[in-house]
């Protein structure tokens, strides 16, 4: 009923006014009517104001129209529509409700416009309802996410309340780093045992025991990484759990098995024909598996990019929900990559002799030890004149330390 007001008003100016007067009030009415057409709620304050101004304008015109009706009837030059329009407008304000319902007195054009207005208003109301519902469900999702975050934080006893103070490191990441530091200490111990074992010419059986212990030691790190992947996959994928130099050569959250085997081949002579073939085929299979996993991850990344980039038609919260479910697949890839690493390490003692396998593990351990040392050296290197005079000497002594024995690196 309310939207029908502007319709009648729009017709009024052209039909009943004379001279300049008509244009002034006509334009005023037109602006008011266009304003009210955009109102969703008939009961909003703005529309009430408009309706009161309508009331005023209506009353003013009522008298004039009653006067002019005779004029119009005798003047054939006026448009036919204006003649038809004047009849309902003559009715007093109190009868407007009855007037709007007697639609047979309005012509087809007005009827259509009334209907369209009603449709538009209805659609607006429905859109608003849908929007509010979306907001509600998003709010619920948000509170759920916040609860999960709280739960995760409470599991990280180390962080306490200073979640942001440690530079946005998640509690899962802190635990991961702690466990890794502990693993590195164990690694040093195992390596020195292996070294003494090799140099003291232990029997093959004893050496095999050591090799197996070392393999279980590696199984341990993969188990830890598996758990860390559940809590904070990004921490693993970005390599924040390792030293910067290791991070530089990162592949899917860790070392690239084929690269490691390349290093071993150069360090492992003499190798028999069969052993060489075995190692090369291991490198080849590893490369194929790495390539397959990389392509799978690439497809996941592309799919994520498409989701996050989205489009104007996509609803924000839903977009986030889809992206979240896709991110969950990252854990699978890190696990498969770690699985590949684990299998490769286990395959080494199968194709090599015990002594060679022991040497392999030493080479691997020392290589990563050196990368870690490189990271520290790089971090503390002198950077131009900002450093005091002592600094260059410090680095020189560090470098001198580096030369004497390889075992020094293990202690960095």
């Amino acid at each position: 009923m309310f939207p029908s007001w502007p319709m009648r008003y729009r017709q009024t100016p052209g039909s009943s006014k004379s001279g300049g007067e008509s244009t002034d009030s006509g334009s005023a009415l037109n602006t008011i009517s266009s304003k009210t057409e955009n109102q969703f709620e008939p009961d909003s304050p703005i529309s009430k104001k408009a309706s009161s101004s309508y009331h005023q304008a209506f009353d003013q015109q009522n008298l004039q129209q009653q006067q002019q009706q005779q004029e119009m009837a005798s003047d054939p030059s006026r448009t036919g529509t204006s003649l038809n329009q004047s009849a309902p407008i003559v009715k007093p304000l109190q009868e407007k409700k009855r007037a709007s319902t007697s639609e047979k007195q309005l012509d087809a054009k007005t009827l259509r416009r009334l209907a369209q207005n009603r449709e538009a208003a209805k659609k607006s109301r429905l859109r608003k309802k849908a929007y509010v519902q979306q907001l509600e469900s998003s709010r619920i999702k948000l509170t759920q996410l916040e609860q999960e975050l709280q739960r995760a934080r409470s599991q990280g006893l180390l962080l306490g309340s200073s979640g942001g103070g440690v530079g946005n490191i998640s509690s899962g990441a802190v635990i991961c780093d702690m466990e890794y530091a502990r693993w590195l200490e164990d690694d040093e111990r195992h390596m020195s045992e292996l070294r003494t074992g090799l140099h003291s010419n232990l029997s093959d059986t004893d050496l095999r025991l050591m090799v197996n212990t070392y393999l279980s030691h590696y199984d341990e790190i993969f188990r830890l990484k598996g758990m860390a992947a559940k809590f904070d996959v990004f921490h693993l994928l970005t390599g924040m759990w390792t030293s910067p130099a290791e991070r530089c050569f990162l592949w899917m959250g860790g070392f690239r098995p084929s690269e490691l085997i390349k290093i071993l081949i150069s360090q492992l002579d003499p190798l028999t024909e069969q052993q060489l073939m075995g190692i090369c085929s291991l490198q080849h299979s590893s490369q194929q598996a790495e390539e397959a996993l990389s392509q799978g991850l690439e497809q996941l990344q592309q799919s994520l990019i498409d989701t996050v980039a989205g489009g104007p038609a996509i609803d924000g919260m839903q977009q986030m929900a889809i992206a979240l479910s896709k991110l969950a697949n990252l854990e699978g890839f890190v696990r498969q990559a770690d699985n590949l690493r684990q299998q490769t390490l286990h395959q080494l003692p199968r194709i090599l002799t015990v002594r060679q396998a022991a040497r392999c593990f030493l080479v691997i351990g020392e290589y990563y030890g050196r990368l870690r040392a490189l990271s520290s050296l790089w971090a503390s290197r002198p950077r131009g004149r900002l450093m005091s005079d002592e600094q260059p000497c410090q680095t020189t002594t560090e470098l001198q330390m580096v030369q004497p024995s390889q075992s020094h690196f293990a202690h960095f």
Partner: protein
Amino acid sequence: MHYQGDYYWGYYMPTRSIGSDPMERVVKLASEKAVVIFSLSSCCMCHAVKRLFCGMGVNPTVYELDQDPRGKDLETALMRLLGNSQPVPVVFIGGKLIGAMDRVMASHINGTLVPLLKEAGALWL
């Protein structure tokens, strides 16, 4: 790689009489070709498995379960078969179950995958 299905790709398949039991259907489909992969077109790990076999020069038969009208039943059957929460990817070679991605990679690294493929006639040389 070629895709198979009852209704797709203009490939006419004779109507089966054992359509009812999904597990039977899995076994039947798995034994029909040398290398069979059950997959979902949206799954990225499935993409990785397909790339692995293609990279080795193998031409696997892929069943995209999201494009199969009875795909959901097959997914449940596969989950039960593996005892896993992930129904795909699952690989069969020569009708024998190899497993999910982790088992496929493990067998490739320990050198058992290639002989299996040769035995099934999927790889030469």
